[in-house]
């Protein structure tokens, strides 16, 4: 291999790596979730991992069990009369906070640019 080959390989590699980085930035969606109890931030959860993870937060009525997967989060179990939080299911948008009013727990997602201004179910 001569000098030009090394140069070519380097250029290809740089383009490849840049592409990978840019691509991962663009597909960067819901990266972090913030969990609040009584309006105080109690936990920050990283959502960039692929595997299922479980967290337990102390709510007003008891434990609030949270599950996360890549770019999404849900409440799995809660002690509340209507279970509105767990019924909401998986969330991956900053526009749909999970609000567990009886437990005074709010989960908000930080995500990159949203395609819409609001979501109505």
């Amino acid at each position, binding site marked *: 291999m001569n000098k030009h080959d090394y140069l070519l390989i380097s250029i290809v590699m740089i383009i490849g790596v840049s592409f990978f980085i840019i691509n991962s930035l663009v597909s960067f969606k819901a990266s972090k979730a913030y969990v609040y109890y009584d309006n105080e931030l109690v936990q920050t959860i990283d959502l960039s991992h692929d595997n299922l993870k479980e967290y337990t937060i102390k709510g007003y009525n008891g434990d609030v069990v949270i599950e996360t997967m890549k770019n999404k989060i849900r409440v799995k179990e809660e002690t509340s009369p209507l279970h509105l939080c767990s019924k909401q299911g998986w969330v991956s948008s900053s526009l*749909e*906070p999970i*609000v567990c*009013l009886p437990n005074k727990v709010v989960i908000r997602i930080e995500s990159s640019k949203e*395609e819409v*201004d*609001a*979501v*109505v*179910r």
Partner: protein
Amino acid sequence: MLVLLLSGCNHITMVSKDLSYMNTYIGIKIYNKDTKKMEAALNNIDKMYTEYDKLADRYTSYEDIININYINNKLGINERLKIDDKLYKLLDYSKRYNDQTNNLFNIALGNVIDTWVQYRDGIKTGVPSITELKNSGSIDINALVLLEDNTIMKTADISLDLGAITKGYVTELAADYLDSIGLHQYLITAGSSSVKVGNHYDNDRYKIKLTDPRPTNKYNKIVKGNNIAITTSGDYERYYEYDGVRYHHVINPNTLFPPNHMLAVTVINDDAALGEVLSTTLFLMPIEDGLEYIKQYDGVEAVWYGTDGTITLSKGMSKYE
């Protein structure tokens, strides 16, 4: 919260505030250059929701105000009571729409709702019989008499429940207030089922995503518009299941049962209060009847989510594409 939006050379700022009222979450965003004015407006809107939350409260009494709890539990039959002008107007508004909706929109369902809540909360098991529901107490809205000078009277032992109207009613008042002080660019999210937007912050239209009433997220439609309210009534919150049947919280005053005509209906119009009235009303009638019914209202469109997953759109929905 304060966010800077770099739109053109105008440095428009967004201020936002999240409130928890009426068993839900209210998010307010205002876009303008005048941060101080926006902050002051947010505080005033917070006060509006606080005040109406107390006035419309069925379950709690407060020392300093006469509210729905007082009217339901303390006010005697045929006894006259002078109430807050704001609450009087809210009752008057709700009662007027009872006439227009052939009694489908009824704020006097409290007695029947209480019976259903006992089953939903598991205090009783199964499904109430029609006899039990009928014996729950009066649901005759005409037993609420609105007299002159903010004075009211009950002629029967009805129980008022303003759960279907207050949130949208206050949201509309908040939007009116923002417009009246020259803050025309705003977005108010009242729970997951209602949004009201003003003018756009960047000469565009707001994009609001309507999602599936079931968590499968199969249906995603984007509605684009300014100065509109979007309100959904559905069977997906506050329900219980028995023998494979879902019993949700929106009760038909004529049958005393929750209907199963559809999964949900979303109303798009320019008024969040009327949006609540109409989404509730449409939810209580078959889809074909609803398509006919909304023709009497100008500028009201709707999206129905059928029980089999079919989506029905009213004719004018295309203008929000």
